[in-house]
């Protein structure tokens, strides 16, 4: 069980958290103005890197906040978390 440092609550066990996918995927301001390919990319295309990955977590059974974390997908080590 990972120990995830919540920016508000400090290190907490993984079972309190909910994974939220890759960070930095911004919803287009005007989706109607976005073409199909760009919309599909927004919906489905992710970087899936080997190595450092910026991703969202929510401290669901804790303070309830979403925050961003950097996790190494090779070692599972979370190297940093930050308030959004």
């Amino acid at each position: 069980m990972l120990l995830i440092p919540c920016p508000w609550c400090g290190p907490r066990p993984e079972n309190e958290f909910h994974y939220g996918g890759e960070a930095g995927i911004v919803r287009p301001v005007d989706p109607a103005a976005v073409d199909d390919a760009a919309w599909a990319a927004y919906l489905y295309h992710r970087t899936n890197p080997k190595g450092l990955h910026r991703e969202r977590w929510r401290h669901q059974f804790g303070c309830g906040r979403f925050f961003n974390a950097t996790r190494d997908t090779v070692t599972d080590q979370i190297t940093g978390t930050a308030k959004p």
Partner: protein
Amino acid sequence: MTQPFRLDDGGRIDRAAVVHFRFDGRAYTGHPGDTLASALLANGVHLVGRSFKYHRPRGVLSAGSEEPNALVTVDRGGGRIAPNLRATQVELYDGLNATSQNRFPSLRWDFGAAAGWFGPLLSAGFYYKTFLWPPSFWALFYEPAIRAAAGLGRAPVVADPDCYTQQYTHCEVLIVGAGPAGIAAALAAASTGARVMICDEQTELGGSLLSETTATIDGKPAATWLAESLDSLRGRVTLLPRTTAFGWYPDNMIGLVERLTDHLPTPEADQPRERLWLVRARQVILATGAIERPLVFPNNDRPGTLLADAARSYATRWAVAPGRAVAIATNDDSAYRAAIDLQRAKVEIVAILDQRRRPGPIADIARAAGLIVRAGARVEGSVGRKRIAALRVANGQGTIDCDALLMSGGWTPTVHLFSQSRGKLRFDPVLGVYLPDVSPARVRCAGACSGVFDLTGCLDSGYAAGEASVPRTFVLDGVAALGASLPPEAAPAHPLAFVDFQNDVTTNDLSVAAQEGFGAIEHLKRYTTTGMATDQGKTSNLNALATVAGLTGRALPEVGLTTFRPPYTPVTFGTLAGPARGALFEPIRHAPMHDWAVAQGAVFEDVGTWKRARYFPQPGETMREAVSRECLAVRNACGILDASTLGKIEVVGPDAAAFLDRIYAVNVGSLPVGRCRYGLLLGEDGFVRDDGVIARLAADRFHVTTTTGGAAWVLHHLEDYLQTEFPELRVWLTSTTEHWATIALQGPHSRSILEALTDDANLREMPHMSVCEARVAGIPARIFRVSFTGEAGFEIAVPAGQARLVWDALIATGTPTPYGTEAMHVLRAEKGFFIVGQETDGTVIPDDLGFGRVGRGKRDFVGKRSLQRPDMLRPDRRQLVGLLTEDPADVPEEGAQVVLDGVGIGHVTSAYFSATLGRSIALALLAGGRARIGEGASIPAKDGSVAVRIVAPVFHDPDGQRLDSHITRLARRPAVLPDPAPRATTRLIVRAPASALGAIGLALGVLLGTVANRAVRARERAALWLGPDEWLVMGDFQLDERVIGLAHGASLVDVSDRFETIELADADAAWRLNGFCALDLAPHTFPVGMCTRTLFGKAEIVLWRTGMTVFRIEVGRSFAGYVRACLAGADRGFGQDTGGN
């Protein structure tokens, strides 16, 4: 004479007491302190098992958990059967009943071995090769034969009657292994005042010190030093004997299994058999020791052949002679230590054969003690049947008669856990073994597992790893200086030279595999099965690597290493499941009217984790009769349903309407106060995820319902968008699912019945899809004029704690018929209303369900853009339609395929018998379904196929006229209305921006603190920080929270009935909580005044420490039973009973 091989003195056994046990039905005796293996050896029993494939007779090889041969089944009666236990670890107790495995009909006369025909069948890769033979041959002959003959123990056939427990715990230092290095580490770490735990898989802590008879430490015999050291640790350090560290998990979480009762003749009832410890350790010290390797030569597996140091332990620790004439074969100095100790114990050593031409100085010590040492001599075979009788020395150097052969091929450091920590191993060319190198985890290695084999080195490295504040040295005497052993060597191919005893893998098998091209060790392992099964190759892996290296002409490290995976030794399923069985497997949630439904004889069904009343059969009624009666009651009079499981979210704030507009596929901004709208909730991908009714209570306040199963997800989804996409909106969300009970009153009589219980609402003025706040039976309620049945009806939300009073009053009017979820389903299907998760499966868009207008407006909302993607516009998408079977009595199966011209065009999503229509009805998702209305199709069924006609999905009242069809009927107002008890505690969820905290705190009379996870108390009131904009405020309030919220642009929501309070106030409170809660509850990490939302087992709770030994739990009312049951199990099952030894 009993126990003929028991030595006259010595050992850590209690000779004064005799223990009776049975092995394969025969009675034997031993002493307390014995293992099953030591007791059998004391009785001269070496033949203890048959090998896996060839049914070779096998004896005890080792004295520890690495044992590959002596696997037994222990039957404690009453279904308590444990197979594949290592006799070397089974503690002897009076009445122990063990049997050998993998033999037929008996251990001594085994059919498989006598027939001798398994050998050619079961060569390297036999699993794979046999599958190439004709399948008929395989099924008829080989598989039954092999399955009958080969295998390990049998799994028990009845449910495990034992109970198991688990414990989360935290410490600064966890030491794995309590040999000299581990004990020294514990002494050092304990001196710092840190929380220290030390575990060892053996019965007694001490490791190799338990077999040490000559060494002195600090002037004391090793055993005395050990006892004194443990005495000094007791009380300061958690000592865990019989506890195996089996797995390393991320961020220094180590899984331990503690065996609590297997060593007891009669465990107390309800005493857990095993405890799973989930230890979060800041620092782990591995002092896991090393495992001696066998030598590989033909017939190296005859009973009577033991590892040398194991035999030393049997003699010194258990006072058992391995034989009367003992030969020793070695390439390592440590075997001399065994020889000398055995000789001191008056066991005859016939010869020491040392493969090395120039043995170390210890050979001279042995010679001086009168032992015969033959340097440069190697064993090339053994003679005997069920016990070794002689060994053959290579190069024609004759035979030596013996009844036991002790072998030592050097030592393999136990690096399993280090490797599991993602630690890198390095190959040490001198020792010829892998040693710990670096790990990203906080781990240190000490003693033999780090390649330090001498006692002085073990103590020193252990003490250093424990990081004492004061340095210390240990003064040793009486310890033989051991030289380095030879690296493992490649043994020549021979069909009876065993590398892996448990899987019967020989050097011949490895050679065949190598010739067939299996050079990579991971392939070779799977092809030959070397290193697999219950021992995972603890004694065999390095010998296999060396042999493969020799066969393929490579250096050993070039061969590679297979991955070390948990568990280190087998772990029972019971331990992994822990208390999560039966009623504690997951929370069983009961709706507020559950007890009433039980009393009425309701039949229940599982909906998510809820138990919901499915129907209420009257005496003699079948399910269809009951459901039909309930449906007709709703259609013709009035039905009453406990709909409390529906999710509810209070959405509050100046921007609440704007937010809901962006989330739901319905216009909320234009919704007047007092009205409701039905809304679909889409994912951003356009697919329908949930639905519900949005009711506007005030300009800034909405009561939003969700599906029963979707409640938690919808709240999460809304928070996601609110926090990450629309953070500028001033709106807050509060779950009120558990605060409000919901009673559905449906049918033409519903208004009359409700009128009898309300004075302050004008129900006649309420149009369909409206809401008002009024008292029902004297209880403040929210009355919704909504319908999921197609009839005129109401849903009444009342605080859950008072819901039963309202329900009883409604029932007391004498008219509503209780109905269950099955009738609810039939009624909605008659109207063509879909259910999320039944008609939808995550690939259905609004248009598929007939909501074609959704998304046509200008307003953007989540999922709208996706509805314009090309796939969403295809005319052949699956669309919701109705189906009518040709035979009205036929009810198709849900999920059945619908076929047209031999091609599947979709499936049935719902099907019922409709009493209203007097026939069956079905809903289906069919490709281009709406265009097919009026056509025929068929449903393949078990006997022939069923013809159906495709129709519109609304079967009943397509114009919706019945929604306003009220029948006035005099309903009885109960003579006495309930007298609700005044609320003891008011609970509010306050969600507010920082700028409003001061003013709101003033209004509430308690400060909303901004320190994370801390509570602020003011007399009888408290404000618990739950999140940076969320507080749970509790106290004796009598105030209008909505006025305060409106005044300060914040959200205050009454959730008084959402929670129940459970208080734990005793010295064991933290320990009991940690049975299910993974937080560190030590006073310095979870001080008085700390509060947090967290998980307790599978229930969300708010945990608040109000005193050193007092914790308060606020738990959702439907989870309270689960939490109480868990705590009760914790009370019954175990107390804090560790720290002893």
